Each structure stands twice: as C-alpha cells, then as structure tokens.
C-alpha cells in the first residue's frame, strides 16, 4: 500500500560521507518506534544539489526541506513532523544574512532558479528502482523512437534541438551521430564518457548516482540512431557508488527487456558493459579512452582518423549529453531549442564550488549570467568577502574576473573571455585568493596528469610550474610573465590532445586578467592577497591588541610573547606563518605585512 508521506533522504557520495546512512537508519528506527511504518516510507535518492548543507532530506508531499541533520535531531523530527504534522523550523534552510527559515524546497532561491532537464529526476526517485524511473516517463522516448521514428528522423530531431556535447568541446551531438550513421560497417559502438576528472567537478557522478536509467535510455536511443548494438559506460573506479547504481540499473533494464535482444519486440538489439577506468585524467580524452578499453596504454593519438573503438565507427558522448537525449525525444526539439541562447541550447549542469555559500550541483538554462549563478543561486560569497573571479572548465578552463560577471553562460562567450564551458566545473574565488598561487595549483594538476607522450605538454607544464613556484617564493624575475605566455602558447600549439592544448589556460587567463598581481609578486615581492607566505610576515597591531592572550595560547611554536592585558608581539624567528593567530584574533589586531613594507620600516 502506498504511504502517506515519503521521506526523501539524499544518499549521494557527498551526503553519505556526511553521515546520511546513519540518518536513514535513525529515521527508520524512530518511524518504527511510533508505528508509522505503514504511513511513512524512507526513500534513498541521488544528490539533491545543495551538497554543502548535507545530510539533506525532503518530506513529500509537503516539500519541506531539512539540512545539516545530525542523528540526535531525528527523534524530534519524526515525532514533530511525521507524527504530529509540525515541521521543525530549526532544521530548515536559512538564506545567508537572513533569519527566517524557508520551509519549502521550491521556495529556496538555490532550487527556485534552476531548470532541470538532465537532472529532471533528482531527489524524486530511488535510483535503484527502475519502476520509479518508468513512472516519470522513463523509457517512453526509447519506445517512441523504436516504434515510430526512422533513425534519420531521430538524428534530425537531435540536430534541430541544437544539443551540443556537454563534456567540454561543445560539438553538435546530432552531427556527430549523423556522420557515424553514414558509415557502413558490421559493428558500431556507443560509449558514455563518465571519466570525470576535473578537480571539484562531480556532475557526471551525480547524474549516474541519481538517475542511471536516463543515461542508459539516451545511449539506447543513440545506438538506434547510428545503427549500433553494443555500448560501454566508461566510469572511473574512484566512483564506487556510481558504478554500483549503474550496474544495478543495467541488470534491471535487462530484466525488463529494455537492454538486450529484440527490445520492445522491434528487432532492435542493444546491450552495454560497464568499463571501470583506473582514474587517469587523460582517459577523458576520447582517443585515450578508447585505447584504455582496448587494453592499450591510454595515450591520446593524432586525429584524424576519427576515434574508433576496435577500428569501428564509434560515438562517444558525455553522461550529461546522454541524459538530455530522452527529454528531447519526449518533449521535442523545438521545446529544447527555445531554452538557452542562439548557439547554446538547453541547460548546463555545473558543480559550484569554492568560496560560495551554496556550493553544490546546479542546472541552469544557457545564457544565465555568472552573477545570477554566484549570487542568486549560490547565495554569494561567505563572510562578506568580495568576489575576485570565477574559474570555469577546470584545469582546461580559465578565470573570468569580477568585472565580466554579467557574461552569459554560453560556449562562445566563455571562450571569448579566455575560459571554456568545459564539463561544468565552476570554482568561485574570493579576494583572499592569490591568482599566482591558484594558477600554480591548476598547473600542478596538469603536470601530474600529463600522460607524457608530447614533450611540449610533459616538459612545458613542468617548467611553467617551476616558474610559478619561483614567483610565489618571491624569486620571480623580469621576463617571467612573458616566458609563461610564450611557453603556454607553445604547449597549446605542440600538444596532440585536448589536455595539453588546454592545460596552460588557467595560467594564461590569470595573467590576462590579473597581470598586475603577477607584476606585484615579481617587482615588489608583494602578494596582494596575502597568500604567498614567503612574501609577508605576521605582525600584531599594538593599538588594536587588547592583550587577551588568545593568539599566544593558539600558537603552536611559542612565537608570541606578551603580558596579559598588554599588547603582544610576534617573534619573527620562531614564526612558521601557520596563520593560527590571524584566524583566532577577534580584534583584527593580527595583520599581514608585506616584507617590502617591513624592510622599509626597519631601514627607516
């Protein structure tokens, strides 16, 4: 018998690591204690999106959203809300800077301004139950194409929709399919690229964890369109939960005859295999991915010829692209093409991370401005700090400075600004971030993940890292900026694959928009953001210091001295610049003073 209420508990990887499985257990225990088993059902779901507030649960049909739950909150919550119908205010979401909680999920700005297509089932279904996917129009699109559309008509529909690859390059999905359709061969392949590897990006993982069947259905439709009968889901082994849910989804789809031979009695055969990648970033590049499935060293190769698994025509699309396909077939290309901008149609999923209040997974219509994403959905910057830049596209992407925040999200516009759409990583950086240091972080990632085949990428990235390290240490020289620019361009020009061709982007875009910060490091040995430790010292402002002694107690190196109730001082020789004193001082008396300023004061 259906229950009167469903408690949708987020069991994505993020929420599980925050303890959502313990919450689920506590809920079930309390529900049985109040003998509410027939009334209330606890449903595990994929990511709801507001990952930073996890563990999260939503009580339906009321749509009440609870966040940051602890097991000790559960007895009260079950008794009050589930038994007596009184939602618990103290566990609800409160907007940054506000006091009144917002009870309903749909009223919370983070959710209100999103538009869900790829994530249409998130938080609504149990990903382990194919029946729930089917009840939300699942596999209807597959039935429609198999029973009433010619493969060419499917391709035409996808072309008309304007869908472009969501993995980063943004190539027209319909055109990609069309070219493979035209190739004559006894075997063709469909691949889902789930080798997501950008630091801070988790779009693909979340889609598979929340709604694996949407990806499988999209792949089956693609297979029918190009004439393929076999497919691979290439997912990295570092995503165990996504693998587990995808495996179960494949099993269930086979049981229902939605994968396998003679699907829907139409004579169409399609089956998939899950291929677990070892987690090398370069395997997201299609030629390397295919080499990996073929058990060859995963190194990219020159294109053309086109990427072809076992030498056969192959379509590789990203997880999010596949998840969009059934929705386009169900609701029409025209509907999809009305969302977005002239050349970028539909929505894009971003994983919003960094210095932003509502970090999480967001799906927004193309053409929305970065400002809307960061401030309206993301809830702005924590601690009232100023925004400095938004980094899109991960290690292949670039920084967009605060002054360009009205930029609409669109493949072309992002590229013009020196960034890329990428697969959807979006890292917000505030005024306390050093643009040399953060560029160094991305280059370090590139150095680690470069496969080493091309000298320019392998050695070039390493030299770029050495230069950046030097600049951060206060040993930058005149000409370093120009050298970085020249090297970066050389790496782009002389690398075979997308990884090398985009790896210098974070550095080049940081120089383009924040050149003065690089110059300050090199010429004045000054880090304006106060991040590069060799370039500043901590000092206690005697006028502000009340002598409370908090900094002295927190200093792990005995580097602070002073009598109670009289100003303290820092012993420079003992100070390791750990920043503990800076963080604990409630009077803003601990300050960072640039070396150059200190030296000037001493010589004065």
């Amino acid at each position, binding site marked *: *018998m*259906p*229950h*009167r*209420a*469903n408690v*949708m508990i987020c069991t994505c990887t993020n929420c599980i690591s925050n303890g959502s499985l313990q919450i689920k257990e506590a809920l079930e225990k309390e529900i049985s204690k109040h003998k509410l088993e*027939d*009334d209330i*059902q606890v449903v595990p779901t994929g990511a709801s999106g507001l990952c930073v507030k996890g563990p999260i649960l939503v009580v*339906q*049909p*009321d*749509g009440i959203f609870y966040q940051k739950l602890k097991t000790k909150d559960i007895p009260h919550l079950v008794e009050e809300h589930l*038994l*007596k*119908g*009184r939602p618990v205010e103290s566990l609800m979401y409160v907007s940054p800077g506000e006091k009144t909680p917002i009870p309903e999920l749909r009223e919370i700005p983070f959710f209100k301004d999103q538009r869900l297509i790829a994530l249409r089932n998130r938080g*609504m*279904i149990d990903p382990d*139950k194919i*029946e*729930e996917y*089917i*009840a*939300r129009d*699942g*596999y*209807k699109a597959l*039935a429609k194409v*198999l*029973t009433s559309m010619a493969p060419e008509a499917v391709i035409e529909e996808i072309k008309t929709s304007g869908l472009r690859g969501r993995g980063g390059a943004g190539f027209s999905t319909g055109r990609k399919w069309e070219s493979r359709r035209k190739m004559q061969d006894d075997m063709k392949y469909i691949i889902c690229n789930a080798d997501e590897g950008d630091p801070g990006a988790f779009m693909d993982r979340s889609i598979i964890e929340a709604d694996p069947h949407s990806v499988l259905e999209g792949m089956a439709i693609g297979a029918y369109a190009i004439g393929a009968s076999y497919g691979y889901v290439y997912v990295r082994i570092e995503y165990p939960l996504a693998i587990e849910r995808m495996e179960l989804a494949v099993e269930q789809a086979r*049981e*229902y*005859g*939605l994968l396998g031979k*003679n699907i*829907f*009695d139409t004579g169409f055969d399609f089956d998939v295999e899950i291929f677990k990648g070892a987690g090398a970033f370069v395997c997201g590049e299609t030629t390397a991915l295919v080499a990996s499935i073929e058990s060859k060293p995963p190194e990219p190769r020159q294109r053309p010829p086109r990427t072809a698994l076992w030498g056969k025509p192959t379509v590789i699309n990203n997880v999010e692209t596949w998840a969009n396909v059934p929705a386009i077939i169900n609701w029409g290309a025209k509907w999809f093409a009305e969302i977005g901008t002239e050349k970028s149609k539909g929505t894009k999923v971003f994983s919003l991370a960094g210095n932003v209040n509502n970090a999480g997974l967001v799906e927004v219509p193309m053409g929305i401005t970065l400002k809307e994403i960061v401030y309206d959905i993301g809830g702005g910057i924590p601690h009232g700090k100023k925004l400095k830049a938004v980094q899109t596209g991960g290690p292949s992407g670039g920084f967009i400075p605060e002054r360009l925040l009205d930029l609409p999200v669109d493949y072309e516009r992002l590229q013009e600004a020196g960034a890329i759409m990428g697969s959807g990583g979006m890292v917000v950086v505030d005024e306390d971030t050093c643009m040399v240091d953060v560029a160094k972080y991305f280059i370090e990632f590139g150095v680690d993940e470069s496969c080493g085949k091309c000298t320019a990428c392998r050695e070039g990235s390493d030299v770029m890292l050495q230069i950046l390290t030097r600049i951060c240490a206060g040993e930058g020289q005149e000409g370093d900026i120009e050298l970085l620019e020249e090297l970066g361009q050389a790496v782009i020009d002389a690398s075979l694959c997308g990884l090398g061709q985009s790896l210098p982007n974070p550095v080049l875009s940081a120089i383009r928009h924040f050149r003065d910060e690089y110059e300050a490091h090199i010429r004045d040995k000054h880090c304006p953001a106060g991040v590069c430790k060799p370039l500043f010292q901590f000092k206690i402002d005697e006028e502000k210091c009340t002598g409370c002694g908090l900094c002295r107690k927190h200093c792990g190196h005995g580097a602070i001295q002073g009598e109670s109730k009289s100003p303290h001082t820092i012993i420079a020789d003992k100070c390791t610049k750990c920043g503990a004193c800076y963080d604990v001082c409630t009077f803003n008396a601990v300050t960072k003073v640039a070396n150059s300023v200190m030296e000037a004061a001493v010589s004065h």
Partner: protein
Amino acid sequence: MPKLKPGDLDKVAGKVKRTMLMREGSGRSKVIVHMGTCGIAAGARPVMKALMDEMESRDVKDVLLTISSCAGLCSREPMVTVEMEGKPAVKYVDMTPEKAKEVFVKHVLGGEMIKEYALAAGSERTF
C-alpha cells in the same frame, strides 16, 4: 520478469503512480488530517488509517493525503480538512473512521460536501 512491450510502460508506471504524484505534491484534491497531540489523543490515527485504506481499496491516485498540526479547535478533534481545486477548504470535525470514509467517498470523490459533519467552509485569515 516478462519482457516489456511499449504499452506495458504505463502499467509499470501505474503501480507507483500514486507515490510519484504524492512526491511531486500534485493532486486533484488534498485531504489533511490534523495530527496534533490533541488530534492523536482523540483518535486521528485510526481516521488516517481509514482514509489510507479507502485510497488503497478504491485505487485513488490523484488525491494527496497528508497531515498537519492542531487546527486550534481541540475539543472537536479529530478534524479533517478537504481542499478541492478551485473551492474553499472545508473543515470536518468530530471525525471517526466511518465518518471519514463517508467524507472521502461523498466529498473528495463525489464533490458533495457533507454539511452535517462540516464546521465551516474556508480557512482563517492569516494576516
């Protein structure tokens, strides 16, 4: 498990349709059982159980059955509010499982309010 044919999708969907509609918070009408301490003490839980049974046995899919807290008139609990689309909400008082079933059949399914059980039509002003 037999292999699905295109027409079978709706049958599979039908089995969980009511649960999905409930999660979406959508329905033709809404039936609210007031479950404050007073309501529970006066017998709101058997009333709820009766309504759930009725939904199940009649295979009703488009009605939302939910709870809320004390409606303020504790002496007349258990209370049930029926909200039909486009009409003022009706509050029923002194409910029993039998009366609740009658309300469900006549009002929620049939559209006819049962005057003798009703306290009033409409909700209090909140501002």
